[in-house]
């Protein structure tokens, strides 16, 4: 009994609709974000993440409306990310009903955004999303949806995020993402040794065993799940029951 490991469904939202696609191409509409979020809540999802993959400011306005609609019926935490650039963007999404906002590229460009958002809205609602790619012995931070290298060491960067006031780190392995061959457990372990704030593992889940390894050997506090759910391979409930049978404390 104590703190549980979290399973967090991630929904990619494009112009107000949940989509799935391979590496941002061949997008296929799979449903309404508000309805899917509630469906996952009822399957015992611990939180929900909406990732806005829209390209234009007009489409981002749609996201604010989606968050408003979702918040009326969602009674677990909701994190919204994608294209967040300023403290104003944080405020807009939080007022619409998001509980946390995740920021990626904009934080790398100007790390003071983390501190400013954290001091105004509280540390609990600032999630820094970090996309890391294996380079030699370490990992490098990439931005712009994993396309642009930054020269920053990923472990140094997450320490900086913690220092600046991030509440959690959403850590995606670019190498593993989309492969369905498992999370980068070594990256998770190295990140775990680097910071004390919670780490959400992302990228690579193709089986229940992968989720188990991220949460146990990898030491992650939570696992972000996308394709495992989208292909209706498993329900959140099935994933959590499987983990519980193997001794992982989850909420059921």
């Amino acid at each position, binding site marked *: *009994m104590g703190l549980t490991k979290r399973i967090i469904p991630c929904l990619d939202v494009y112009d107000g609709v949940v989509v799935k696609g391979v590496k941002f191409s061949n997008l296929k509409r799979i449903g309404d974000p508000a309805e899917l979020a509630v469906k996952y809540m009822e399957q015992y999802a611990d939180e929900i993440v909406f990732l806005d993959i829209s390209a234009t400011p007009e489409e981002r306005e749609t996201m604010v409306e989606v968050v408003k609609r979702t918040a009326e019926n969602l009674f677990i935490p909701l994190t919204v990310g994608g294209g967040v650039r300023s403290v104003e963007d944080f405020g807009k999404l939080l007022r*619409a009903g998001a509980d946390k906002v995740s920021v990626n590229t904009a934080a790398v460009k100007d790390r003071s955004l983390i501190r400013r958002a954290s001091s*105004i809205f509280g540390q609990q609602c600032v999630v820094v999303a970090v996309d890391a790619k294996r380079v030699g012995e370490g990992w490098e931070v990439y931005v712009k949806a994993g396309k642009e290298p930054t020269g920053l060491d990923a472990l140094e960067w997450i320490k900086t995020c913690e220092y600046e006031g991030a509440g959690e780190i959403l850590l995606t392995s670019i190498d593993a993402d989309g492969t369905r061959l498992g999370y980068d457990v070594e990256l998770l372990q190295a990140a775990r040794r680097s910071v004390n704030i919670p780490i959400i593992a992302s990228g690579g889940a193709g089986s229940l065993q992968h989720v188990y390894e991220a949460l146990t050997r990898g030491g992650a506090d939570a696992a972000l799940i996308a394709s495992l759910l989208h292909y209706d391979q498993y329900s959140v409930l099935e994933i959590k029951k499987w983990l519980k049978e193997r001794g992982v404390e989850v909420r059921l």
Partner: protein
Amino acid sequence: MKKILVLDCGVGNLASISASLKKAGADVRISSIVPEEGFDGLVIPGVGSYSAAFKKVDEQRGRIRSIVENGRPVLGVCLGLQLMFNGSEEGKQDEEGLGFFRGFVKKIPVKRLPHIGWNSLETVRKSVILNGLENGAYMYFVHSYAPLDYDEDDAVAYASYGGIRFPVAFEKGKVFGVQFHPEKSWQPGLRILRNFLSLCEGGKSV
């Protein structure tokens, strides 16, 4: 329908607490000023920064106190609960809390903070606020501070995290406080809000 006033402490997300109170059956009004009449219960929510929340609660101190003295139910959530003690390490020394519960809020002495996620509750006595919940129910937490100095008579449930056991639900007359977020804790959380609403007398005021 029970009229619930949610105190607006400034910058936080009040959409979550209002949506869940509505779901629990309340007529919700958000205000940064506590009026004398027109509501059946008060919720002091728990989002935003400590000093911002303290400032707002301090401004409304007299009104909040008279609500408690008149026996109208008050529920503090997270930071809202912490403001119900005598003070907090997170605030300045002269930022004196409401003092509805005797004690002091301190940083939890564990390495891994904030304490974020779903943690089970250990209920230690029968209470109105946790009525109907099973022992071990999971609630969603986000905090680094907790009332580690407190009166055992006021505590109704505990949580254990990182080897530390600390009180997370308080009840004294019609004053209630929870360290977790019932508004983010799905069914068990909604149950707590319904328990709170059931104590609020509706229909008396306009």
